[in-house]
């Protein structure tokens, strides 16, 4: 399952009123007091969550008289470019919404405030795995308040399973079963998957991804995993577009009932209901396919740049925004989950009411307790592309799985420097 599952959930909302730049504070608090003006930048939350964010901002301003939080929302498209331009110019907003893989290069370049140092008592308020996601592996320090989390089930098309003579109530639970069922579906000309594996899928398979400051996913288990995909590809269990597909593309193929199985999130279920009712009528929901016992987790956080002229207020706002109360409220609105240690105890995440939505929500919340953010924070967009291209060469038989993975690892390690 891919990070985009999660991002798409929030980024899919129509975006309006953007284009504001992330200017830094004008009213400076130099003595560490929580006062003055800060700018807070989010990733595609307008207009669907405008009221929620404004409510949090108002509550913070009321609690801390003399503060002003200027909220700017950036559309998902071009968000990275905007952060890059601001980071290059040294003018990042005071509080900025970033996922771990975006906070990592900023933290590595020494641009973010280390929360372990600045707010020593904050760590216990958050889930350990969420807090760890914002650390620089091996070097310590945490560079972002964990904000919202997501994980999700596997969705499958019961009608396509039945059509191929498979039991629609026995979907695959591990990767071995996935291959067996995929080959059976392929015999009936049904493709099970719309994508080659992502780095997180390697993690779910149990492959060691990163060790001693180097990528290691070309280890024998990684090769075994790609060989399994190669057998599925050769049998027609992956659609032809799988070699070039991103998460969104694979999701669209599943919605169009061209593939039989796809990872998703609670958000997707609502989308199937409205956009693909014939799929919704046959939808099967099962636990994530994993060899490790832990599901994949996606998360967003908020970081405070060192360039902020009002760090005290920025840190206080970051902590306030991500406290249990505010996160639970947000989670109820947006089919996401809180990253605070106590947020998941809310009955909303522990009690089923008979609906599919509640079933997915409760299962996901349970899953999150042991979930892992498999994607290494060092894994950049260029590395993702290198892996995708090498896997395509392996599927097409231009390279052996071992050669393709060696090439991908070499390229990732070169990019790491």
């Amino acid at each position, binding site marked *: 399952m891919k990070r985009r599952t999660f991002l798409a959930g929030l980024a899919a909302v129509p975006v309006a009123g953007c284009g504001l730049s992330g200017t830094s504070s004008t009213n400076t608090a130099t003595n560490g007091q929580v006062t003055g003006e800060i700018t807070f930048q989010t990733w595609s939350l307008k207009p669907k969550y405008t009221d929620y964010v404004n409510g949090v901002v108002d509550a913070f301003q009321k609690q801390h008289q003399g503060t002003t939080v200027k909220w700017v929302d950036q559309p998902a498209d071009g968000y990275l470019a905007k952060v890059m331009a601001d980071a290059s110019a040294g003018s990042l907003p005071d509080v900025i919404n970033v996922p771990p893989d975006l906070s990592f290069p900023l933290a590595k370049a020494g641009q973010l405030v280390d929360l372990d140092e600045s707010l020593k008592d904050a760590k216990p308020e958050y889930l350990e795995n969420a807090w760890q996601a914002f650390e620089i592996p091996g070097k310590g320090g945490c560079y972002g308040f964990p904000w919202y989390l997501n994980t999700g089930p596997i969705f499958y098309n019961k009608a396509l399973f039945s059509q191929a003579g498979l039991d629609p109530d026995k979907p695959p639970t591990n990767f071995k079963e996935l291959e067996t069922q995929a080959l059976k579906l392929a015999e009936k000309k049904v493709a099970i998957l719309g994508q080659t594996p992502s780095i997180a899928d390697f993690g779910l398979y149990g492959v060691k991804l990163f060790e001693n400051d180097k990528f290691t996913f070309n280890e024998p288990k990684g090769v075994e995993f790609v060989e399994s995909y190669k057998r599925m590809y050769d049998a027609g269990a992956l659609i032809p577009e799988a070699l070039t597909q991103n998460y969104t593309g694979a999701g669209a193929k599943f919605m169009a009932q061209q593939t039989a199985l796809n990872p998703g999130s609670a958000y997707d279920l609502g989308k199937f209901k409205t956009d693909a009712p014939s799929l919704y009528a046959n939808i099967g929901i099962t636990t994530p396919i994993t060899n490790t016992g832990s599901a994949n987790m996606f998360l967003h956080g908020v970081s405070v740049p060192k360039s902020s002229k009002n760090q005290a207020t920025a840190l206080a706002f970051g902590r306030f925004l991500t406290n249990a109360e505010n996160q639970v409220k947000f989670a109820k609105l947006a089919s996401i989950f809180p990253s605070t240690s106590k947020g998941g105890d809310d009955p909303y995440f522990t009690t089923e009411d008979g609906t599919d939505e509640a079933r997915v929500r409760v299962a996901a919340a349970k899953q999150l307790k042991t979930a892992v953010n498999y994607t290494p924070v060092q894994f*950049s967009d260029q590395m993702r592309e290198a892996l995708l291209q090498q896997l395509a060469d392996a599927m097409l038989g231009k390279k052996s799985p071992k050669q393709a993975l060696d090439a991908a690892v070499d390229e990732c390690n070169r990019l790491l420097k």
Partner: protein
Amino acid sequence: MTHRPYTPWLFLAPGLAICLLFVIFPFLNMIVLAFTDASALGGGQFTGVENFARMVQDPKFWAAARNSLLYMAGVVPPLVLLPLLIAMLAQKIVPGIGIFRTAFFTPVIASTVVVGLIWTWLLDSRGLVNNLVEALGGSRIGFLTDSTLLLISSMVVTVWRGLGYYMVIYLAALANVPKDLHEAAMVDGAGPVRRFWSVTVPSLRPTMVLVAALSAVNGFRVFSEIYLLSGGTGGPGGASTTLVMLIQSVGRGLTGEVGYASALSVVLFVILLGLLLVTLKLNRREDQL
């Protein structure tokens, strides 16, 4: 009437300022960055010609340059000839011709993303074209999943998009072809085909050179069509990546290798400049003949 010597500069100042700020300065900066190992978050160190040496040994660069050249070679001939034929049809004043002219011009003004989506739906393995092929008894064709076919499909989109634009250029040029030449040729017994080759084409030669130059430059720096049809991946294994796509792929994001991307951009600039100089020379020779 007299004016102060600096008055013209005052009128030029806004345009010059924009040009300096958004064209000249970034261009010079790109040249400087090409000789560094700069990343998105740092100025980088001077590395001499290391980026260019890396380029020579980078198979991705050669593959991308080859794809860009192929692309140019593939789109220039149809973009020189087809819009001319359409312009000759569209210049006739018949009832409803406005509708045809608009129809041919619509792809030019249509959003690139919308155009990309429409063609993706058409050429997808389960798209309209493949369904038609299957209905006629054929097997599905990997328009978007085979690296060669992906390049050809993108060329088709480029040609389709360019038809209207170049048609307008030809329409303007056709209006300037002296009617008496056609009349003289008719009196001499020349048919429509003979008149096309002996009157229309020679009269339009400078325009055809211009169209060839513009379409060659645009073809060589193609990005959107392949990017959209391949979902941003450059096709299976990145085998259909063009030079501009490679620059974007290398330089994007917080972890982008801005130094290397700049070096690639410098090479692209030199190639395009060479192309334009050759065209200019050809055009001059035409004028002298």
